[in-house]
């Protein structure tokens, strides 16, 4: 349902993405791993046009769009079918949890208010935040804010949700509640593209792993195979380093 072909991006003279190819099928949960500075986050931001990519193209729902030459209208249309969960939540600070979720429905999609609030409450319930519906972001913990952000993503019925290191800004104690919600979504068949440092999630929840370094995909494959039998030398070193870290 989504394919990235030859994605290129440079910040000034620094080449961050040197031609990334990636394919996501319906129902896939793809974990993108890699050391800091490998371009994982930039790739995700380019895919939702938060960064302007220099080259390559995006195939979405069977239509191909060149990254450097896509109309605002097409961008808006694709964004209506996707959702993004940020590392630092980015909840609307002047809106309650409920209105954070309804905003994209009522304003972005012209949904009637009662219908939008119904959907928002259902989404908040799903992430276990219904009892905090009338709280403002600053009254919520990081984990709670991120769960509201996931509800905001879910409520728009996206075809795919992009997660940009969704647990990196959280206390270790709070990552569990967010990962729990994501695990639930995966079980229900939601298509997800997740940049993460959570090896447990990559190993146990995702069905596919992409390992990136220096702006290219070093290795990709089904999660089980990737962890049991990494083909590339660089992947093996990366996994060894991480295992040592967790021992």
């Amino acid at each position, binding site marked *: 349902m989504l394919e990235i072909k030859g994605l290129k991006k440079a910040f000034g003279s620094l080449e961050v993405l040197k031609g990334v190819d990636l394919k996501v099928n319906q129902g896939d949960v793809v974990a993108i791993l890699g050391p800091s500075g490998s371009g994982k986050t930039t790739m995700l931001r380019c895919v939702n046009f*938060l960064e302007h990519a220099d080259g390559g193209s995006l195939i979405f729902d069977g239509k191909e769009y060149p990254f450097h030459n896509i109309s605002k209208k097409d961008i808006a249309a694709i964004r209506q079918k996707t*959702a993004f969960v940020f590392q630092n939540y*980015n909840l609307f600070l002047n809106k309650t949890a409920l209105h954070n979720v309804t905003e*994209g429905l009522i304003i972005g999609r012209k949904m009637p208010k009662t219908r939008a609030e119904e959907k928002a409450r259902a989404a908040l319930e799903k992430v276990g935040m219904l009892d905090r519906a009338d709280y403002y972001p600053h009254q919520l913990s990081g984990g709670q804010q991120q769960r509201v952000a996931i509800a905001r993503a879910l409520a728009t019925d996206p075809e795919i949700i992009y997660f940009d290191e969704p647990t990196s800004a959280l206390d270790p104690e709070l990552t569990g509640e967010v990962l729990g919600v994501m695990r639930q979504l995966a079980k229900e068949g939601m298509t997800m593209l997740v940049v993460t440092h959570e090896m447990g999630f990559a190993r146990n929840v995702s069905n596919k792993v992409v390992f990136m370094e220096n702006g290219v995909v070093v290795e990709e494959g089904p999660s089980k195979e990737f962890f049991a039998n990494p083909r590339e030398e660089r992947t093996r070193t990366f996994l060894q380093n991480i295992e040592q870290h967790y021992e």
Partner: protein
Amino acid sequence: MSERLWNILLDSFWKIFLPGLKVTIPLTVISFSIALVIATAMAMVQFANIKGLRQIARFYIWIFRGTPLLVQLFVVFYGLPRAGILIDPFPAAVLVFSLNEGAYSAETMRAALEAVPAGQLEAGYCVGMSYLQIMRRIILPQAMRTAFPPLSNSLIAMVKDTSLAANITVTEMFMVTQRIVARTHEPLALYIEVGLIYLLFSTVLTKLQGIGEKKLSTYQKKGE
């Protein structure tokens, strides 16, 4: 205090206070409202970096922040008639005060817009909102909260600055006071009296600022 002086003060209080209500307050409210519209527009074209309009905004701010308010009043009221443009005292004062304040408040608004985290705009895009929708519903309300204290400051300053309009024959509080002084020869008491009336207006505005800030702070942490 002699009974004569007491009577002058009592008698002049309403004579000064009334033009305060009828001229100073309307002049301030109208000018400041127009200034806010100008300021928001000027701040937004800079924030959105719209080519051309941005340069016009910078030029306008440069001119009106860089020249004295009194000079601007004189150019419009005494100067423009030479070019065939005659404006009555009150509208001339409104024009100058709005344009002058608009230039200062534009900078306040720009700083407030830039203080809103960039992620708010990105999150708006990602839930399917357009730039203008995000501006109107997310960015501007947050910027307004940040800009509220400095804007209140400007409003209080403007109440006092309207006394300059006396120089272009607007019969506001200060001009009325000057007239009474000319008749009664009691400059010390009367100028202190008008000062106290300005203080009264400023105090009311300061109280309103406090109430306004409290109302706007619902979504913010204490001390932020």
